[in-house]
């Protein structure tokens, strides 16, 4: 379970997250929607400690992420994240990209890591691209590789930071299909996304983010189907 309590986050004088509270239960899929610069991506980075917070607390399975003694490297093994820019390691093949962290972090042997990597790559439909360098792949394929790379660590949670925003429109579908597959398998997921239709379809709950605070949170039918706040209505009108 991820518990976010009254979190504040600033970059210098600019406060981008202004007191956010929300919980994500095991097995749940929660989507965060909202305009650009609303602070939703930043919140995601705070969950696995890639960004620090100024106030409040974030607990993952009871572990305080931003406490002094917390071993973030250890915690991050359990929280996979997929970025907007897929960040393929350009100098490694697809297979090596996925094997690297299991080898270094989980200390798996070469053959164990390879088995895990091959399994995850097949899972995302890249079983025929193992020996290829990421430079030769399309954006959609690279993003699916990034998903496999995160899954290879057997995470308990998966965070998606606008995973399809940087893709050409015709490549969005294949990545969404992979994400849908994960949701159906019961992975706990937090999606920051601009794909409202997709969010409505796969999410258990949707949160609308505006200017650093959550304006509405609830079932997709509630928040997207029947929004209450004028900001939400306004936003949905602009994107749908």
């Amino acid at each position, binding site marked *: 379970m991820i518990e976010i309590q009254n979190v504040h986050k600033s970059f210098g004088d600019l406060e981008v997250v202004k007191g956010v509270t929300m919980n994500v239960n095991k097995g749940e899929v929660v989507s965060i929607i909202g305009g650009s610069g609303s602070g939703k991506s930043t919140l995601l980075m705070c969950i696995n400690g890639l960004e620090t917070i100024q106030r409040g607390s974030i607990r993952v399975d009871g572990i305080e992420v931003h406490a002094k003694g917390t071993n973030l*490297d250890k915690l991050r093994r359990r929280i996979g994240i997929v970025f907007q*820019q897929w*960040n393929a390691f*350009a*100098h490694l093949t697809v297979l090596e990209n996925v094997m690297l*962290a299991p080898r270094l972090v989980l200390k798996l042997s070469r053959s164990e890591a390879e088995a895990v990597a091959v399994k995850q790559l097949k899972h995302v439909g890249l079983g025929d691209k193992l020996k290829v360098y990421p430079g030769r792949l399309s954006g959609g394929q690279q993003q699916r590789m990034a998903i496999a790379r995160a899954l290879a660590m057997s995470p308990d949670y998966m965070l998606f930071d606008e995973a399809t925003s940087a893709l050409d429109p015709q490549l969005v579908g294949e990545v969404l299909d992979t994400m849908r597959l994960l949701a159906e398998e019961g992975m706990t997921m937090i999606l920051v996304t601009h794909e409202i239709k997709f969010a409505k379809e796969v999410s258990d709950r949707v949160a609308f983010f505006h200017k650093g605070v959550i304006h509405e949170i609830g079932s997709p039918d509630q928040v997207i189907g029947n929004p209450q706040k004028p900001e939400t209505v306004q936003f949905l009108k602009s994107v749908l």
Partner: protein
Amino acid sequence: MFDFKYRFQWRQVINNLPAMLDGAWITFYTALLSMVIGIVIALTLLSMRRSNNVALRSVAIGWVSVARNTPALLQIYFLYFGLGAFGATISSWAALLAGITFNNAGYLTENFRGGLRAVPETQTRAARSLGMTSFQAYTRVVIPQLLRIVFYPITNQMIWALLMTSLGVVVGLNNDLMGATKALTDLSYRTFEYFAVAAIIYYVLAKLTFGVARLAGWKLFSY
């Protein structure tokens, strides 16, 4: 017009070619050694420059600045005579190696710093998000990509290092290509012939290094 009475004598140079080629080998491996150590130091200086510790950062900045803004020969002098002043006598070869290494490390650090800008910060983020330590992210994700970007400058620096080894003769080194050539001319006074041949050997060494590096670059960085 000119009073041209000089008779070139190439035969004895040819006879002494093996000695010069032995010297060329010493020249080559001294340069190579100075590069290997220089690269390791440069990577260390680079991470020191990026650290939050003021002392570490100052040492790195100072090193780079002195290495780039003073003559290599002065650096070698400083090590050769300077360390001697502390009672630590070091050989001409050690002074040469240390001097070139110092110089290489300074220039390479700057090259690496430029190259690092081409490796996006998000690569480190992605690596850290998978649970890698910052050391693992640096050595396994950032540096390999950095090396590709700076491979060409590294090759250039290696050629510079080759040419710089010739400075060893100034502090008395007598068995590298330059030193061996000088020793031979001191006996024979055929300065022009010997140094012309030495020049050709340096040129060939430089071009061979360049060619091998090109090939290695293709092989290593095929992605």
